């Protein structure tokens, strides 16, 4: 785990050794994470891996049973007003009060944030074509997400937290959400934490990434570093093999006969030696996409599980 030694004094979020159980199941198991200020932090993991649980800890909706959670150095459970006033949050199950009208929602939300930006709210509402007099319960799913996004963004939060923002939404709304994230980070010093299982989105917009699997952090750190730590190797053997070889660092194999392809984690320099040791030569080597890393890290032992 890289997170432990990645302590930044100006961390926006600092999570240390948080463990949380729901019944027998450990939703989080000794999770430590640091989100530096100004980072776009992508949280990836399968459904039920613990992403939402982690985000709920950050917001103080769950009390850390053991370990500590600090947001801007504050405890979100002890001082919810202090933390939440600096956070913009968009939940996956967008639960805005359905009886409110869009303009009422904005009027209501603005009362909570001293630095609410009316001009920005108006600009976003116009760009998203939000009807002010429409009731939220009558909006389409995409428009609901956009309304939630305006409410989360218009006070220019120091930390934007998005829990699966684009799940179940059409590509146009997804573009709006990604655009909003990028707009947010383009302004200096703002931090974004978002969870997603659309990994190409994460790869596009985030500069830090953490992968959670069954409540544990598989890896966490700078996206480029994470990618550099992985390689997709195609090995060619002299004689056909019925099964993939044992290669140090290999996470997942696919292939048959003479050619086998593996996604490996570790030091790239060592792969050459490892391949030679098992009588093969590397015919192709490239940095895998986050998607390939995800499937390799999680896919092999990912049983069918319920939703988050």
């Amino acid at each position, binding site marked *: 785990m890289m997170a432990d030694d990645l302590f930044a004094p100006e961390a926006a979020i600092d999570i240390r050794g948080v463990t949380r159980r729901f019944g027998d199941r450990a939703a989080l198991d000794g999770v430590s994470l640091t989100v530096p200020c100004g980072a*776009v932090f992508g949280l990836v993991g399968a459904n039920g891996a613990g992403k939402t649980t982690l985000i709920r800890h950050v917001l103080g909706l769950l009390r850390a049973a053991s370990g500590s959670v600090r947001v801007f150095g504050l405890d979100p459970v002890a001082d919810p007003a202090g933390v939440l006033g600096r956070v913009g949050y968009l939940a996956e199950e967008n639960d805005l009060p359905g009886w409110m009208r869009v303009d009422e929602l904005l009027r209501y939300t603005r009362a909570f944030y001293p630095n609410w930006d009316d001009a920005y709210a108006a600009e976003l509402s116009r760009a998203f074509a939000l009807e002010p007099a429409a009731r939220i319960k009558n909006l389409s799913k995409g428009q609901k997400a956009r309304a939630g996004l305006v409410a989360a963004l218009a006070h220019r939060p120091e930390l934007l937290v998005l829990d699966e923002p684009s799940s179940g939404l059409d590509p146009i709304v997804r*573009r709006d959400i*990604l*655009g909003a994230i*990028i*707009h947010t*980070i*383009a302004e200096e010093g703002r931090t974004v934490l978002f969870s997603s299982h659309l990994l*190409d989105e994460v*790869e*596009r*917009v*985030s*500069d830090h990434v953490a992968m959670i699997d069954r409540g544990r952090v598989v890896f966490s750190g700078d996206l*480029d570093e994470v*990618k550099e730590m992985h390689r*997709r190797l195609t090995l060619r053997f002299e004689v056909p093999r019925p099964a993939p070889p044992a290669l140090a660092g290999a996470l997942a194999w696919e292939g048959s006969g003479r050619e086998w392809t593996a996604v490996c984690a570790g030091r790239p320099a060592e792969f050459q030696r490892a391949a030679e040791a098992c009588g093969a030569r590397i015919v192709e080597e*490239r*940095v*895998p*996409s986050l*998607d*390939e890393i995800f499937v390799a890290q999680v896919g092999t032992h990912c049983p069918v599980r319920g939703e988050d």
Partner: protein
Amino acid sequence: MDIHLANDGVPIYLQIVNQVKYLVASGRLAAGEELPPIRALAERLLVNPNTVARAYRELELYGVVSKRRTAGTYVSGAGSPLARRERVKILSERIDALLAEASQLDVATEEVIDLLRRRAEVMQPRSREE
């Protein structure tokens, strides 16, 4: 500037670098032309602004573009000052792929060279005009 990002493991900044190089080489970006601002390109491509900034830095390093004091990034006037070995290396990779494809399609190497010449004639005059 027309840039398409693919999700095939190639780092995004590298995709931007390669495509800008291609656009410059093919004349679709002329010398002295301004590249879009980092933030605008980031919002258009929906990528992290830092990624675009890194691609621009890389391009500046290669001498493909240069920063001017008025805070804009412009395509350099001079041709790419990349070291010859570097250039050969980049091209060799492309040629390898081309040759592999040609042998797969049963096209002789001579024919490929012929084709290369004809394509160069198509591309060259345009880049001179601009």
